[in-house]
């Protein structure tokens, strides 16, 4: 299944560093996400994009992971050649990551 079924995400940018929060729709899924959405997998997912290291910070209190991707924005928002220089769309790309199946939730609260 895709990560999108269990989590939502938001991208932020500072200079040439992009961060993506991955937040469990249901707090009970946090441990499952923490097991399967590792810094290594995120780095591999963005192999063509992220030139630097990827760090992961854990926030079990709010059921969230925060990925910090260095040298990820083509030199930074101000000089990137990308149509999306901020990398805003990277969160949606990450939500396409395949993770092992888990029983789907009947309803996702907005």
């Amino acid at each position, binding site marked *: 299944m895709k990560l999108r079924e269990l989590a939502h995400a938001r991208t932020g940018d500072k200079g040439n560093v992009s961060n993506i929060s991955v937040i469990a729709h249901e707090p009970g899924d946090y441990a499952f996400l923490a097991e399967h959405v590792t810094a290594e997998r995120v780095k591999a*997912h963005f192999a063509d*994009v992220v030139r630097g290291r990827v760090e992961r910070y854990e926030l079990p209190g709010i059921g969230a992971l925060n990925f910090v991707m260095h040298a990820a924005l083509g030199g930074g928002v101000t000089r990137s050649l990308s*149509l999306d220089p901020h990398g805003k769309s990277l969160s949606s790309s990450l939500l396409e990551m395949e993770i092992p199946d888990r029983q789907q939730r009947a309803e996702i*609260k907005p």
Partner: protein
Amino acid sequence: MKTLRIGAGAGYSGDRIEPAVDLAERGGLDYLVFECLAERTIALAQQARRSDPDAGYDPLLADRFNAVLPPCVANGVKIITNMGAANPAGAARAVARIARDLGLAGLKIAAVSGDDVMEAVRARDLPLVETDGRVADVADRMVSANAYLGAAPIVEALAGGADIVITGRVSDPALFLAPLMHEFGWRADEWDRLGKGTVVGHLLECAGQITGGYFADPGYKDVPNLARLGFPLADVSEDGSAVIGKLPETGGRVSLKTCKEQLLYEVHDPARYYQPDVVADFSTVQLEEVGPDRVAVSGGTGHARTDTLKVSIGYFDSYVGEGQFSYAGAGALARAKLALRIVEERLKLTGVATRELRLEIIGIDSVHRGARAGSGPELREARIRVVGRTDSLKDAIRIGNEVETLWLNGPAGGGGAWKSAREVIAAVSTLLPRSEIRTGVSYEVT
């Protein structure tokens, strides 16, 4: 316990204007804060000021103040903003003129100075942060150097009786932290409270991004009435806890999910969020839904501030040239790919020197990056995009020109040529000792 109500009136320089008017009219606010200054904006503003000493502040300043000043004055709402950009004193004079034209007498408008540290940065060869190199590497191309100031000069202005405070580069959360310090008497070394106030400021600083903007994903995260998105307000208590909300009958949504996304927006290590006033710790923040579109924020803390301030340096970097062109119907993708190969070869044949070059197809691989990019069914229309970095404006212009010549020289059925060439002012950062920075506050009275 005393509480203070702060609204966010803008999250970037071009943001919508009416949500702030709505907050000023019926929000019961004590303060309305406008965050309008991005990394690159101040470098462009510095250039504008160099050609005109009265320029260099936010281009929408007049529109915003004309719209919000009457309800703010009528309801006793104080305004704090970084719309001063490269010229806070010039912005304060402009706001005073607007107020007089609106017949609003007796207003005290403060301008905060001291963020322009170009001379101090030039005088020392500091290492850059987040990238290799030193200031000397960009010194001859530097167009601006602005330190992220903290809350102190804004607190000074409020203590001086200002109704409106206009700054240049100030850390975004400090725009919100300052009224909390002023009204609650928080000291500059109460790290726990400054950390909590920073949490609140961080949640509010992007305005609509916590009320359902930058969030909707139909079927997964639905948000009502985004065309009338309401901007956020926070009821902040003296202990630093707060409730985030928005006005009734506005669009959008404030939920645990919108607050969680915004809490981590542009954050690296959540336990060490470096600010001029404090090193804030977001790792222990707790969120609780306490009503419709109302989320209580508690926890979070702070640690002693560092001895340096972050400085954003704008420098001339390069030129970028770009061209776009569309193909549609059967075989659109094949013709688009052919067009890209033609342009790539033409740039080589005609000797256009590029430091970087991207050849991509909008709808396939221009925005979507990472694994799975480029997969999916064939498109019924495809738009090519060729963009390159050059050392000269002339070469940048030639990139778009080569794309445009596809009209008469490229594959069948191509149209919609568009081209541009621009100078790139890029930004790098360094850290400057606090002792190098002198802030000041000046006033205009209407």
